């Protein structure tokens, strides 16, 4: 069974999803990620879905779960690279994906994470909206 690799970049964790996520791999990812955040004390998680062409409600739930679990462990999550066709389909499907920050690509995602982490520690509100 393949495992999805989790890369560490400083105080951030990077996950690139390139295969179709189905139940066992997805649940393993959740568990691995949570362990890693705890172990490394990561402040942010970046999930790259630019290679994902189908996101159904199951996958949406997994992403939502990861965001919530990370939050509980005091880390922020940003999902990057959503394909237009996927975005259109998710809107139609009615998946709220609440509490999940998104950005266009890895670079913007990291910038966003930095900002969120800074706000957390410096307490300044510079008007960023979710």
């Amino acid at each position, binding site marked *: 069974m393949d495992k999805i690799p989790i890369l560490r970049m400083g105080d951030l964790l990077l996950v690139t999803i390139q295969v179709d996520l189905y139940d066992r791999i997805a649940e393993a990812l959740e568990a691995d990620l949570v362990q890693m955040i705890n172990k490394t004390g990561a402040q942010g998680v970046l999930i790259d879905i630019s290679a994902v062409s189908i996101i159904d409600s199951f996958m949406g739930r997994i992403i939502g779960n990861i965001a919530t679990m990370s939050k509980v462990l005091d880390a922020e999550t940003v999902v990057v690279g959503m394909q237009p066709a996927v975005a259109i389909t998710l809107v139609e499907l009615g998946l709220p994906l609440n509490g999940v920050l998104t950005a*266009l690509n890895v670079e913007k995602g990291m910038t966003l994470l930095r900002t969120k982490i800074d706000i957390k520690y410096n307490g300044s509100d510079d008007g960023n909206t979710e």
Partner: protein
Amino acid sequence: MANLLEFRAINPNIIMKNEAIKVFQKRKKNIQETWMKLQLSDESLREDLMTNEDLRRQSDELLTAFVEALDDNNIDDPRSSNFDPVVDILSAISISRAKQGYTPRETGFYVFSLKDALLHILQQDIKDPQELYTQSLKIIKLIDSFGVTTFETFIKGREEVILRQTDEITEISTPVIKVWDGIVALPIIGTLDSARTQVVMESLLQQIVESSSSIAILDISGVPAVDSLVAQHLLKTVSATRLMGAECIISGIRPEIAQTVVHLGIDLSGIITKASLASALKTAFSILHLQVIKK
């Protein structure tokens, strides 16, 4: 078979069909000439669209195919598959004429003048009035059917032109302009129907990805009216943009549209709307923490 008379008594139709076909085969050249004369003398001749030489060549090709395809069985059946080569040539002629700019009447005359030529020659060679009448009816029915074919293919040819123009218009009327680093604008001109809105939506999202723009401004000041379905699509466009991690500002909402939307009970409170593209740009700069300073 005892003699020809006996044969004829048993199978009268067989011999009679052969006669008309035999006439056409024998007098093909005459038919060609007669047909060309009819075409050249008619005021609908379009020498500006086709030279007389080309016209002659086109007519010969059709006539030859027709005479060769004609047999005892299909003279009564315009829809016989034996006429396929004739129909193919005819359709090709009709489509190319449509593209050149011939009117359907002019192309119709092309076919019906053939009918005149055929009947003219038939009249010269078949002396028995009853037989002439019977054979003429068959020819009339055949050529009329071919005439309808030319109209059908003419329409198809025009439809292809319309489709191509529609595509071109769609392309021209939804330009994407990069107004700043990270900001794209889509000014939409013309009526927005449900289908076009979906195309605009896909185009917008694709542009956002390709240009890595965090903000897209959708300007609808060139859109006369918006119905409920289109408004829903616009809202979905904004949602999809946000899901991807960008923001979408809708600008240029005319007072009439604002009224319609509120009356339809559509909730625009979750999206950013600005009266003009200029103010949308100002908002975009502010979101990106950019400032314009006078020197």
